[in-house]
């Protein structure tokens, strides 16, 4: 049974790239193009993991995270933030709300992201120190 990933990312290029790489790694990828759609899709069909961008229209990543973690139905979903270096404040806040880890987009190629997610599903742990604050 392939794992299902909900990718919430507003940038088309990045989204396509991640979708492609993750699908190549055998995941089923569902996409949301803004925060609001992300919350709706997470409620409609609970994914195994959620990759969440921060800077997005309608609802930003932190708002989405709050709603996900504030709802009994979705609060069990592991959420990984797709972030950039220099957003430490936001990352700290996200961990307080209940994020499981973060991925530095600019540092990682899509295959690295896929590798980290593979590792997470295999070991059940957040792989490297880059993933946890």
């Amino acid at each position: 049974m392939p794992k299902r990933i909900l990718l919430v990312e507003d940038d088309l290029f990045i989204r396509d790239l991640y979708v492609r790489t993750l699908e190549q790694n055998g995941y089923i990828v569902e996409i949301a193009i803004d925060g609001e759609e992300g919350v709706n899709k997470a409620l409609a069909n609970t994914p195994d993991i959620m990759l969440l961008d921060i800077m997005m229209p309608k609802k930003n990543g932190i708002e989405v995270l709050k709603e996900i973690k504030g709802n009994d139905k979705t609060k069990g979903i592991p959420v990984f933030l797709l972030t950039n270096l220099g957003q430490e404040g936001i990352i700290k806040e996200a961990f307080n709300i209940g994020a499981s880890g973060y991925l530095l987009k600019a540092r990682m190629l899509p295959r690295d992201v896929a590798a980290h997610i593979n590792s997470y599903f295999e070991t059940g742990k957040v792989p490297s120190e880059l993933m946890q604050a």
Partner: protein
Amino acid sequence: MLIIGIGLFVNLSPQPVVQQSQTILNIVILTVTAYTIVYYRFVAPRWSTAELILSSILVYTVFVFLVAHFTGSLQSVLFSLVFVPILITALMLGVQALLIVVAGEVIWLVTEFYFYFLPFHPGISDPHILLWEKLIAILLVSFVAYDNSREIFTRQSEHELLEQEKETIRLLQEREDAILQSMDDMVLSLDTNKNILIANDSFAKTLDISQNEIIGKNYDSLFTIKKTNSVGDAIETIDLTTITTKEVEDNDSKETGPTNFRLQTLNNDKQLFVTLAISNLTVDLKDKETPNDMVAPGRVIVLRDITEELQLERMKIDFVSMAAHELRTPITAIRGYLSALKEEATTSLTPEHNKFLDRADIAANQLTTLMENLLSVSRIEKGAFNLDVRKTDWVHLIGQRVEELANRAIERGLQLNWEPPKENIPEVLVDPLRVSEVFNNILSNAINYTQKGSITISVKYEPAEEIVVTSISDTGPGIPREALNHLFEKFFRVSGVLEQGSKGTGLGLYISKEIIELHKGKIWVESTFGEGTTFSFSVSTIHNLKLRKQFEQENAFRV
């Protein structure tokens, strides 16, 4: 009256029988008069105006009687001359001289009355004065008249000089005041009790009240000055009468970042960011004969409004951060797609096209590094470069980083030596992400700049100082001696060094130094030109309790 008396006595007793004694008496009186005048004129330091008037009266009296003596009557045209010195004196001395004029007139009238209407003293029409008496009298009168006029002219010119000086001082004051008032900077002078002695126009405008309303008031009732941190939050209120120049200048502490001063007006609630320049008034009270309120010890404070500059500065920083954030998304996409292409299309492309792809990839990586570096520099300069310090297994971390870069070293035909130390190394206090950045940067440099040979990484624990020193040595071209001191400066590049694959930004080592210093560690370099280079840096172990506490206080350390 005395003088009139003398004059009358001299002239009213010319009886033939006492002619000789009369002559002697005349001489005595003239000598005494001359002596008195000379004494007052030369021995006494300076005549007062009253003395001047008295001497003038004496001169005219003597003059009147001399004319009477010589001509035997008061009808002589010479009498008209009496008005010349009177008029001159009146013109020169102004109101005071009216006394002289009046006195002269009185003497004139009394004498005339005496000679014409009291004819029982006939001696006057029959003068028995000797020639030498006449000559002495003429000389005496001439001298006193001359001296008087000279004195009058001197005083006149002194008076003019004084007026000129006053005018000059007034002009100077006006000019100084104009300078003070036209200054864009706000200028304040305070006494030790915080009372405002002087405030210029610019300051009055800031407060929206007139200068007269400001002067003399306690400054606490008009405004406050607060020290603020880099983001503009007030740290403390400062006392302008006690703050030292050093405290004002020392506004760039590592703890709080660059500080500023904020002027807050109380009546119109304005907020301005200002720079302060403070100078103490050091007037020596003993030496100056100035009114007390002018020399009360206090200080002069110049405040410059830098609100706009600060805003521009912030905008610049924000612009860099914003630009970097905005650039990231497209660059991430470029790198992602390039890597996908490289992974999947290599076999279907010609070697040349593959080279193009490699170059595009390298350039995109450079761009990423540059952008991240610029962002780091902007954050360092903003004082917003925060650490997330954790207890870290150092050997494990270095091992991971070495592993990541091992392929690049192998690609360049270099030997990468990394042997974890046999001794037990305690955990260290670092922000793993930031320190990894430093290590990666130094190791990448070593790989990029070394043509052949090896790179050796070593980690050493120094229990005495509770630090762990990590060194990266290469067999590269080495760094010229003159460049060594500048290596950690912003935008410094060693010129003439052959670079391959990656072009430096001149920021990597600067950022590395800042990161290591934020960890309270040290970074240094040793190099022999032509033989190789060793970069080393130190980080503290968890046994450095003082540092741990400091990180905790800075809210940088999370267990």
